[in-house]
């Protein structure tokens, strides 16, 4: 009778575990993939060393003048030198605390809202904060009684970008909701007006609206009676953005099963109750990714302010690189703006993921 002898176990062949297996499965699983992988590696080889040399190894960080920086690598000193302009524009340095407090207050208010959790007055307090905040923020930024007025032509840089984007986002949202509801309305006049407005603005590029606001509108005014340029641009942005939000929300409204409307009617809810308690919460939840998507698009669109002579962060690059002491450094400026934009926009898209998860009621599983 054969006796079972335990044999020493063999090692798993290298090709089936670890790095090599991963490589085989993911990068070289067949001929096409192998070619693509090699191609990608070659591209990386072409690009990365050049960029790294320029941005890091040949770059200058020391406090030197433009000439001492040389033309081989990046001159990051230029960014440091112009940082205040990139962030605040022409806002007077002694008043930098004002935009800083606007940001601090925003964070504080969000934190308070978080702390309240299920407090019984939560909705009321949050509503109050939402109404009070823009008033405080605009008072701090612009000034008013007992605070020196800083006119909007001095606003610029990242501050202007954020102001334009935030105002656009915050003001366009309620308008968008109303327009979306208007388009679904059973009242013909409201529906007609909403459709005309939405289709008209959607058929026009933002750049045209901004031109209209900056070049054509002033001609209608009497000489001397001029409306703030930033305000004109902001109104243009809000008009534009609300239409896109309206269409995104309409998509959400149409995704709600008819049964939901009927059930709400069967319970005897009024139109306001039905819309506010049943339909909108579901429609908005479905639309979150698209709403955030169009907010991200708006944030990028604010760089169009450049063409009407407002100095957002992108046009600051143009202005600061035309300083004769820092000529030829626009590449560094554009790279800097790219990094700042990416950080902000990526955070926005991550936040949209968080929101989606928080409000997920998972119909999918």
């Amino acid at each position, binding site marked *: 009778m054969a006796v079972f002898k335990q044999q020493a176990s063999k090692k798993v062949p290298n090709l089936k575990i670890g790095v090599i297996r991963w490589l085989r499965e993911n990068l070289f699983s067949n001929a096409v993939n192998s070619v693509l992988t090699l191609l990608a590696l070659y591209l990386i080889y072409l690009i990365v060393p050049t960029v790294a040399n320029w941005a890091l190894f040949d770059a200058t960080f020391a406090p030197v003048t*433009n*000439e001492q920086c040389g*033309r*081989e690598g990046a001159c990051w000193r230029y960014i440091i*030198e*112009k940082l*205040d*302009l990139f962030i605040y*524009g*022409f806002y007077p*340095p002694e008043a930098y605390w004002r935009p800083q407090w606007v940001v601090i207050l925003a964070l504080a208010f969000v934190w308070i809202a978080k702390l309240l959790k299920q407090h019984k007055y939560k909705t009321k307090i949050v509503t109050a904060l939402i109404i009070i905040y823009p008033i405080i923020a605009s008072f701090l930024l612009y000034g008013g009684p007992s605070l020196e007025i800083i*006119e909007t*032509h001095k606003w610029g840089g990242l501050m202007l970008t954020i102001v334009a984007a935030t105002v656009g986002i915050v003001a366009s949202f309620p308008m968008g909701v109303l327009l979306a509801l208007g388009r679904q309305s059973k009242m013909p006049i409201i529906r007609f007006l909403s459709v005309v407005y939405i289709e008209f603005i959607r058929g026009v590029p933002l750049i045209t609206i901004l*031109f209209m606001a*900056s*070049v*054509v509108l*002033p*001609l209608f*005014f*009497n*000489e*001397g009676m*001029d409306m703030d*340029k930033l305000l004109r641009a902001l109104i243009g942005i809000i008009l534009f953005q609300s239409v896109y939000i309206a269409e995104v929300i309409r998509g959400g409204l149409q995704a709600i099963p008819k049964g939901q409307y009927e059930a709400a009617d069967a319970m005897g809810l009024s139109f306001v109750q039905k819309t506010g308690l049943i339909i909108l919460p579901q429609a908005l939840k479905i639309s979150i990714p698209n709403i955030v998507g169009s907010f991200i698009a708006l944030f990028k669109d604010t760089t169009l302010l450049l*063409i*009407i*002579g407002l*100095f957002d962060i992108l*046009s600051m690059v*143009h*202005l*600061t*690189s*035309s*300083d*004769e*002491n820092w*000529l*030829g450094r*626009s590449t560094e400026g554009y790279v800097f703006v790219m990094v700042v934009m990416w950080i902000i926009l990526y955070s926005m898209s991550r936040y949209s993921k968080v929101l989606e998860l928080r409000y997920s009621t998972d119909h999918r599983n």
Partner: protein
Amino acid sequence: MNTTSKNIILSLLVLTSGIYAQADTLGDVQAKGSLSCGVSSGLVGFSSTDSVGRWKGLDVDVCRAVAAATLGDANKVKFVPLTAKERFTALQSGEIDLLVRNTTWTTTRDTSLGFNFAGVNYYDGQGFMVKKSLGVTSAKELDGATFCLQAGTTTELTLADYFISNGMSYKSSPSDTSAQSKKGFATGRCDALTSDQSQLYALKTTLKDPSSAIILKDIISKEPLGPVVRQGDDKWFNIVKWSLNTMIAAEEFGINSNNVNTKFKNPEALRLLGRSGNLHKHLGLDKKWAFNIISQVGNYAQSFDRNIGKDTPLKISRGLNALWRDGGILYSPPFR
């Protein structure tokens, strides 16, 4: 046309002409306490900002001079950065009191837009930058060369005209921005770069080795740049014109911001500084208007040197912009 619409159009006409007839820009500026001045949103040497956001440049100095003359303080200027498309609307609508945005003085602009050009603060012109290794010293030797230039500007048209009229041929390599055409020049895509001369100097300093290129003396177009005001307010037109003339005349008399307080013998200099005569009365300004310009902004040479001339990396030579007695064409009518 019925009577109602005729009336409407008539009343609109009356309204617009009424605005022009009553225009009192000086009064408005003094009531506001600041001068709204339209400048370029970033043009090397003409209008840009330093690292703390203070505006500087040759165009900016004209704004400051007018503010010094009318308000007694060169810093009381609200700079309104404008794009090329916006500039004329901004002036027409009254958003700005004065436009100093490297605007070329042409017949069309002077006659059809309702504007007046109050003089010339910089004589620019289209020129060439070539590689030193080519060994070229004159534009006439550029037959058959390839040119980098900015597409969609009048540059290309001027270049074509010049080569046709001289019976020569050329190839062009257009790109979208001046930075791109500089890249093309630097990488050897073309033999020469053509653009306005003031910009050529700026582009040259950004080359890896600026000494490898030279800017030719030849200029193939006239681009006189100057301050612009609305038609119909002659008083304001005079003030801007003579503020600019003050800077030029001050250089001629050897008055600058450092010695403006010393005694001068030249009777014309004394009239300029308001120490004799009453030139200021006709302009409706304070007796010290010219003194304020010179002491706060300086004369033309000072402005030129610190913005685009020998004290800057641009090192643009005075050329046409030298005084008439130094071989240029800068000339102020006499102060008397």
